[in-house]
């Protein structure tokens, strides 16, 4: 489904994003979750942890805008042991911390791998920003863009780097569609038009096992990462 990028990144091999650890084993796969505030990024991270924590060794980095709410929510919900959840502060510029200056996030990721041992998967949640915020390829191996039906069913049509280029587009809160008058078919058509072959997942985290399609996509990424 997802085609990897043909570009190579020579700096990756020396500065943080090298795909192997010092001992020669493959480092954790890093997946970024971006999208507007309130679309359901933290809820998706929590659901993914619950769905995958028995089969994968996981950790989470949050990029709260001005609080530690996201990290605290995940801690309160006990989706992972506390030592596996780290918060990065972003100086009022969440997009800078995931794209233009990724150093604090790279530090957080490496500290997690050092302190809790080898990890299979690290989820990095962006602080939530506008539709142009995307993750640097120096920080993550794949990125998920989370929007919701309540933010308006014209978001996929508007496009923007997140909607258009993310490795997975998640349209969340489908349970709310009837109440906010969002046309899911139209969102699917618009998304397909913007994204071509790139996948789109519709989910409601209010329903049982709502995160299943996204969890399955993560499993595929992990499988591809390990054999690569």
């Amino acid at each position, binding site marked *: 489904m997802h085609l990897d990028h043909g570009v190579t990144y020579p*700096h990756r091999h*020396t*500065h*943080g994003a090298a795909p192997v650890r010092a001992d020669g084993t493959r480092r954790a796969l890093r997946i970024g979750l971006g999208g507007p505030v309130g679309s359901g990024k933290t809820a998706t991270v929590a659901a993914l942890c619950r769905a995958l924590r028995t089969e994968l060794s996981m950790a989470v980095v949050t990029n709260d*805008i*001005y*609080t*530690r709410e996201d990290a605290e929510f995940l801690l309160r919900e006990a989706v992972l042991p506390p030592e596996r959840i780290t918060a*990065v*502060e*972003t*100086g*009022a*510029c969440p997009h*800078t*911390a995931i794209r*233009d*200056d*990724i*150093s*604090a996030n*790279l*530090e957080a990721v490496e500290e997690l791998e050092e302190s809790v041992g080898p990890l299979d998967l690290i989820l990095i949640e962006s602080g939530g920003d506008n539709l142009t915020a995307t993750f640097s390829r120096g920080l993550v191996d794949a990125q998920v863009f989370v929007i919701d039906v309540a933010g308006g069913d014209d978001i996929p049509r508007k496009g923007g780097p997140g909607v258009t280029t993310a490795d997975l587009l998640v349209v969340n809160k489908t349970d709310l569609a009837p109440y906010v008058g969002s046309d899911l078919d139209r969102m699917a058509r618009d998304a397909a038009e913007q994204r071509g072959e790139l996948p789109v997942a519709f989910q409601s985290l209010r329903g049982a096992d709502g995160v299943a399609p996204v969890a399955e996509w993560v499993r595929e990424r992990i499988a591809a990462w390990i054999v690569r």
Partner: protein
Amino acid sequence: MSLAALLVLADGRFPAGGHAHSGGAEAACKAGRIHDAATLEDFCRGRLHTAGLTAAGLAAAAALGLDPAGLDAAADARTPSPALRTAGRRLGRQLLRAARATWPSPELDALAAAFPRGAHQPVVLGLTARSAGLGPDGAAQVAAYESVGGPATATVRLLGLDPFEASGVLARLAPDLDAVAARAVAAALRARTDGTDALPAASSPLLEIAAEVHADWPVRLFAS
């Protein structure tokens, strides 16, 4: 000294983590000590002649090739606030990552090996300048400029201060910046024979205390 290398290192977009730190401006804005361009200028002048001078001295000494471990200990001794010490080492580690990618050198590799938890930012800055082919004056200039550039940018974000006024503040500080850098370089040259005690040890108690209080805030925009 390559002026172009100096520009690359001094550029606020150099990806070394500084954007998430306010240099004490967030605490000062909240306390009402910074509320407009004039008070930002006062704050910056105070920081420049205290924390800025001290950082510039350490950076110049590192650029001259003084022992980084000794300089790191000297930085610790000049930073009473544990929160600022932690922030300084964190920023040092982030700068080192960017520096090793930008101007690779055996000296930077050795520093990373010797300080896996991070060396103080001004020490890393001095060695980075050295790897970039800059001398102690370049290192001191960047350290001095960073000591006021960070708070100025942060205040634009925190107060919605007119960005033109903020850059005017920085421009008016230019003579002070040059003077502080020159003092720092002179001290660093003395430190070659007299040891790190010859380096400036100016500190601002209010910055240190405010940093401790700020580190305990549950809600804040900047890491320090």
